[in-house]
């Protein structure tokens, strides 16, 4: 600094300056250790701040998508189980129809089978009306009312028709959505009887189709005693049941693939979360050991400067006169 003449005020000011600088270094280290974070206010590290704000954003958005996926997975898995049960019911109906078509059975036998078919239809209606916490799965957007209602031999579908938008979708990543529901009308159909046989075949409304129509038709055919075409009709129902089974199976495949996609996306999100969390920690978390070592060193420096200051400011010529 090239100062030739040292005065008392100069010495004391210098001492104050250096002590002040040391103290402020100590305070900033203390802040870091107490919070465990490198960046406690934006000006600590502007570039680091931008990065951690971005990372934190992405982590939160990913967490949101994870949430969505979990929600969707629970719905999709429930639907999967339910449709599986439906498949079993249709297969049971096929067995019963085969029995009924066996011409050695008498009408009493066929009536008994018809009763069982009737029970089966009720079970199918119940399955179609599956809900999760009051939200009906197969009614499209009309989730507040049961999709199927049965009065006598009429089964009506009250959900969103397939001709309208019925797909409920979930955002699983930016700009990507997955449909999580199946339309009940597509799956099971509906039926309105205009004239029950005999004579067979019975006649139905234009909207009637699907496995419900086949089952009601089967029941009526089984009950139509004395009709000469009875056994033929029952065999026709058997063929229709095969088609219906394929329909249900295809819906099950759709649900299955949705479930797969959801699981895969969740896995990717989990991986990304762990990578991003590590990146975030590398910027924001302090290296505790290093910072404490630095703190100790700084404390020693401070201690030394205090000692030197004390010695310097005390010596004066007057002590020696």
């Amino acid at each position: 600094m090239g100062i030739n003449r040292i005065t008392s005020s100069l010495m004391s000011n210098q001492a104050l300056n250096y002590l002040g600088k040391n103290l402020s270094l100590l305070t900033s280290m203390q802040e870091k250790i107490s919070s465990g974070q490198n960046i406690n206010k934006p000006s600590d590290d502007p570039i680091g701040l931008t990065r951690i704000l971005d990372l934190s954003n992405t982590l939160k958005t990913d967490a949101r998508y994870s949430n969505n996926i979990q929600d969707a997975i629970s719905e999709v898995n429930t639907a999967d189980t339910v449709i599986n049960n439906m498949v079993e019911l249709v297969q049971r109906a096929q067995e019963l129809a085969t029995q009924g078509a066996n011409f050695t059975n008498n009408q009493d036998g066929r009536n008994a089978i018809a009763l069982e078919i009737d029970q089966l239809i009720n079970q199918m209606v119940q399955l179609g009306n599956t809900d999760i916490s009051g939200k009906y799965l197969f009614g499209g957007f009309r989730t507040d009312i049961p999709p199927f209602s049965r009065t006598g031999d009429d089964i009506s579908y009250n959900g969103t028709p397939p001709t309208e938008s019925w797909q409920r979708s979930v955002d699983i990543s930016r700009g990507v959505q997955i449909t999580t529901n199946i339309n009940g009308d597509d799956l099971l159909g509906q039926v309105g009887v205009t004239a029950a046989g005999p004579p067979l075949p019975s006649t139905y409304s234009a909207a009637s189709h699907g496995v419900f129509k086949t089952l009601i038709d089967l029941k009526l055919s089984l009950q139509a005693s004395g009709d000469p075409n009875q056994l033929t009709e029952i065999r026709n129902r058997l063929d229709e049941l095969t088609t219906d089974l394929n329909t249900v199976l295809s819906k099950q495949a759709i649900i299955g693939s949705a479930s797969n996609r959801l699981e895969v996306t969740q896995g990717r999100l989990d991986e990304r979360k762990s990578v991003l969390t590590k990146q975030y920690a590398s910027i924001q978390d302090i290296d505790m050991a290093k910072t404490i070592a630095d703190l100790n060193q700084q404390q020693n420096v401070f201690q030394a400067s205090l000692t030197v200051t004390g010695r310097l400011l005390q010596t004066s010529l007057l002590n020696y006169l």
Partner: protein
Amino acid sequence: MITPGFFGLFNAHRGLVATQNALSTISHNISNANTPGYSRQRVDLAAAPAYTPTSRHEVTANQIGQGPVVEKISRSRDLFLDTQFRLASGKLGMNTDMRDILAQLEGIMNEPSTNSLNNTLQTLFDSAQELSLHPESSATRTNFIQQSMDLVSIVQLQATQLYDLRKNLVGDALVPTSFNTSQLAINVSEVNSKLSAIASLNSNIVTIKASGAEPNDLLDQRDKLLDDLSKLVDIKITNYDNGQLDLSIGGENMVLGGRQVDSLEVIQNPGPAPDPADVPSLVQTVTGGVILNDATGSEITGGKIKGILDMGGNDPGLSTVQGILGKLNTLVDTIATEINNLQAAGRDQNGNLGPPDLFLQNAAINPGQPLNLFHWEINPAIVNDPSLIAAAIDDPTATGGFAGVGDGRNATAIAQLRDQSFAALGTSFVDYLNGTISKLSIDSQTYQNGSNIQENLTQTIDLRRQSLSGVNVDEETIDLLRFQRSFEATSKAIKVFDEVIQSIIGMV
């Protein structure tokens, strides 16, 4: 050669006087060793002009010394260092003030943290997503409304804090008394009182100098006032040999010699009010009404006052308080408009088209504030009836346009606002906010570094000054010994002369 008999006594007398002067000055120095702004004084001794005696008995003429004479008492001061110091000090004042205000702004924005605006925004869009998954649930609807209320309350809290900060700095038109109590006004009145003190010192200094003496302590006082003044505002000084000093601020004369010709005042900006783009207060001269910080640029270029004016102003290149308020205003305006638009285009839980707006402007909240930011509230009708949230879209394929209670596609659209870019912002909500914080952080760091550098510079110059002007007690002690011995010796010489004269008188 015979010199008049009392000659030696006169020399000794002069010696005593000179020594006494020196001792007084030394004790003055020692007792002022810790006085801020004090410059050490030295007694300049010189030999008095010698006396050449005339005598008809002389062959050669001798010159006899006449003892010491005090030429003057000078003070050790370097004008150049003083000027340098004042320049540096002005810059330091400005940098430090801006650094401190920027730190306050960082505190208000409170990033990075879990209680920040950033977080609240994210949570709002999260709740919209949740609503889209379960639009039939009144819990998710209520949650979405609650998050909207949180957003409004945190934004208004920050807005109020920012507004208060600015009002304390430079005043605000909504509170007319704030123009007298603001930091700006306080600093300006301090400037004025220093100006009048300098003017009165000036006339005293000129008078004393005219009589031939050195008004050292008055000069020290004046220099201290100038040092303090330069921290507050940048000044231009003209020195004259007769001790007079002219001072001007921002090109306007404030002190001419012994007269204070002008002073500064803070007035409310009389522009179209209250326009948030206006700088609320102006600094002008009292006589002549010259505005020093008008729109074409500030004539004040340094000191704490410049720092306050800058941070309280509207410079778009700096993270001013008003700048951040403006950005928050634009952000919330855009969010509210976009969500309201979606709300109006959708259907509520009962299938009704175009339910009422979610975000309303209520003039009764923070009345009088010009920015929309202060007046937002969540529509109380919706708070009381969450079914009015339009989670469903207006579906042309559906019967009656309403697909059903399970339709959450409008809520999905609200959630997807998070990723969209908007013309008013030039980017997405979160990026706009983060950009503002980022700029604040860079500005804050810049001024922290600037203050540190400027502080080091100022200290270096000041140390030089103290090296020159400070009192070294050891030095003074040695001088004390020296003059004390000299006084003893001179007294002894007087005793001897006394005996000589007595002898001479005794001869008669």
